[in-house]
């Protein structure tokens, strides 16, 4: 227990732990201090000066970084404080690209909200404005520096949490800009497309590459059979876009909404997650038995894949050759499903709704086209799906629950938990342990790999073998594990890595919660809870017990790891240079 200090804030006596900030102490007294650049755990630098308070010294101080002290008297609401905050905000607004009406973040913009809260009813300062080009060359992330308020949350998450550092603060003074070095497009940088920068951006300076038009166009084309698949993490977050509490399970409503948008079939990516477990589990067992490259590392997260291609090319052989579930699904839809339904694969248009921006990049990888056509045609984020539902005038909250379509709609609980960190590991263990022991084990909840610790390690008994497993989420944590593997310190059999902190539930394509919410609620934990509840409510909780999958092998793929399975469901990776010279073009 740390020592407590007593201070007064606006006349209220507060006891706060020594070393905490005035902002944190104010929260204990239920006093709200407005903030802008501050984001708990990610950006605590006192840069924007919106949170200033009077602590009895000459100048107002930024409460998000000012430590509490015994006997301190703080005033958070006085004419001087209010005026200082408002002028600061007015100066930020003076060169902001105020296209709020057409901004993707309108109504979910922290700057807009603040302008309203602080009663800025006029733009007093009309000064020079920056006029930057928008970087929309990346398949995943669009950067609009004209809307940037230089809070540095994005550079912090990119550098400190993800250890990617694709963007930084460049130049100085009025010319200060957040951008990649030499103003190179994100496309040509080591950016892994994780989209964490989008999730932390308080304004519309970072957003996903919008693919909605392509989806509408396909739906409207009578010649196309348009199929949509939804990833596990989407169903536990999409409700937030319609005002539902964080962690609300909306599977039935989501399916109903997608059917009403006009998709011909609505399928569940979880089914393909089960398929992934069959292939990856088999790969793991084979590598263990035949002395193959270990540890085997998961390959579901496309942000992670690009990260390893840039940073650990010497360890690419450790990656599972399995395509990610969305891509496996696309390949199956354009072969097995096409055959079964008697549809020309050229006429099947596969859309995926993903919690992820990196999936947009993944679907464009030329090697992921088993039939000669892209396995998946277009990937959209949870946010884009919600925008389509709104655009179509569908009242999401009053929709009835509907079921995924046959024949590819059944999934096990193991497929669902793919959406949270540790989920792929747990799903794999449920199957691998059964196969290795030849038994149907009842003990299937591997709690050691659940939760939000950055790196989780578990030892699991499977007959004679003790499986050593490790799980990392967030690329900073992935880097730690990879360094251990590279140096030979680690001797794991199986490693799960997800690029985003918390896993897919906190993917770069998920609903954006403002700092005011993120500072209070752990959105990863809430959404993950919903994922595990979903798992508990499904009768079949092991991938190899999913009859749909068994049938798929019987009728089409023969057995896991077969020649046909390899052709359709497996892939390869390549080393990627950081800032390749031949394509370094400025924006």
């Amino acid at each position, binding site marked *: 227990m740390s020592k407590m200090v007593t201070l007064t804030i606006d006349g209220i006596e507060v006891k706060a732990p020594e070393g905490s900030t005035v902002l944190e102490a104010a929260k204990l007294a239920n006093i709200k201090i407005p903030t802008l650049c501050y984001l708990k755990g990610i950006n605590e630098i006192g840069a924007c000066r919106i949170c200033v308070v009077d602590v009895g010294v000459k100048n107002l101080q930024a409460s998000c970084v000012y430590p509490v002290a015994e006997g301190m008297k703080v005033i958070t609401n006085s004419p001087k404080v209010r005026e200082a905050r408002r002028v600061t905000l007015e100066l930020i607004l003076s060169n902001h690209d105020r296209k709020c009406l057409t901004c993707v973040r309108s109504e979910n913009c922290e700057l807009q909200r603040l302008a309203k809260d602080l009663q800025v009813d006029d733009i007093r300062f009309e000064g020079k404005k920056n006029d930057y080009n928008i970087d929309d060359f990346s398949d995943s992330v669009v950067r609009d520096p004209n809307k940037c308020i230089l809070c540095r949350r994005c550079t912090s998450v990119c550098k400190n949490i993800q250890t990617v550092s694709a963007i*930084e603060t460049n130049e100085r003074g009025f010319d200060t800009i957040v951008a990649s070095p030499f103003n190179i497009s994100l496309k040509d940088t080591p950016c892994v497309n994780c989209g964490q920068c989008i999730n932390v951006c308080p304004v519309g300076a970072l957003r996903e590459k919008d693919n909605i038009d392509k989806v509408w166009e396909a739906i409207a084309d009578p010649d196309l059979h348009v199929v949509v698949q939804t990833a596990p993490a989407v169903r536990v977050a999409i409700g937030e876009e319609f005002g539902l509490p964080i962690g609300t399970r909306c599977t039935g409503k989501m399916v109903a909404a997608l059917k009403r948008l006009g998709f011909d079939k609505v399928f569940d990516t979880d089914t393909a997650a089960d398929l992934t477990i069959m292939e990856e589990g088999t790969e793991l067992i084979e590598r263990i038995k035949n002395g193959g490259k270990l540890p085997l590392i998961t390959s579901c997260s496309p942000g992670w894949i690009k990260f390893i291609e840039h940073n650990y090319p010497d360890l690419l052989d450790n990656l599972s050759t399995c395509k990610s579930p969305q891509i496996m699904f696309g390949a199956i839809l354009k072969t097995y499903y096409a055959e079964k339904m008697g549809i020309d694969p050229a006429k099947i248009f596969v859309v995926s709704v993903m919690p992820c921006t990196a999936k947009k990049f993944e679907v464009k990888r030329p090697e992921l086209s088993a039939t000669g056509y892209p396995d998946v045609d277009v990937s959209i984020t949870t946010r884009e799906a919600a925008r389509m539902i709104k655009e179509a005038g569908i009242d999401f909250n009053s929709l009835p629950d509907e079921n995924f379509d046959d024949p590819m709609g059944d999934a096990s609980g193991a497929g669902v938990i793919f959406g949270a960190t540790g989920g792929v590991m747990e799903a794999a263990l449920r199957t691998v342990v059964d196969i290795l022991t030849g038994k149907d084990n009842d003990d299937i909840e591997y709690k050691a790999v659940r939760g939000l610790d950055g790196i989780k390690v578990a030892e699991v008994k499977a007959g004679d073998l003790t499986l050593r497993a490790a799980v990392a989420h967030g690329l900073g944590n992935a880097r730690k594990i990879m360094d251990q593997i590279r140096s030979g310190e680690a001797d794991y059999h199986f490693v799960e890595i997800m690029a985003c902190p918390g896993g897919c539930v906190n993917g770069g394509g998920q609903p954006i919660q403002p700092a005011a919410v993120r500072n209070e609620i752990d959105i990863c934990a809430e959404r993950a809870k919903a994922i595990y509840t979903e798992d508990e409510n499904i009768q079949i909780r092991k991938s190899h017990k999913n009859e749909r999958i068994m049938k798929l092998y019987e009728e089409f793929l023969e057995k896991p790891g077969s020649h046909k399975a390899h052709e359709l469901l497996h892939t390869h990776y390549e080393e990627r240079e950081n*800032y390749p*010279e031949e394509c370094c073009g400025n924006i």
Partner: protein
Amino acid sequence: MGCKCENNCADQKVQELIEIIDKHKGKKGALIPVLHDAQNLYGYLPLQVQKIISERMNIPLAEIYGVVTFYTQFSLNQKGKYQIRVCLGTACYVKGSGKIYEELKKELKLSGDGTTEDGLFSLESCRCIGACGLAPVIMINDDVYGELVPADVPDIIKKYRDRK
């Protein structure tokens, strides 16, 4: 610099750069001295140089570029053999350094800060160089010229042109 990668042309300079990096590497705050020395070596800090520094020091390129563009001392563009710095700070400016700058632009056929086509001169406006008593002041490499009038400019430039 003209070289395309670490291993082909301009090998010798790259070797020197690597020596510079290794000399400072591991020390706290090593990046700035490395950038200083690298700029002295190349005259500027292009992508290829920053990439080598990034890889060898294990510092992301984005961070290095952020530092380079923050400090006006560092340059992303090739400098001339003779680097002319014109002080446009308060004292020099009120004493007419704006006109000196205009005259230099005319003499060097430049439209603003930049490098002449033959690579002989680069022009750079700057703030105080610490010689206000001599205002208006310019520096050409390490030479200081003070109490100037626009008519002095052609002769000064000629001196360096003749030197080649």
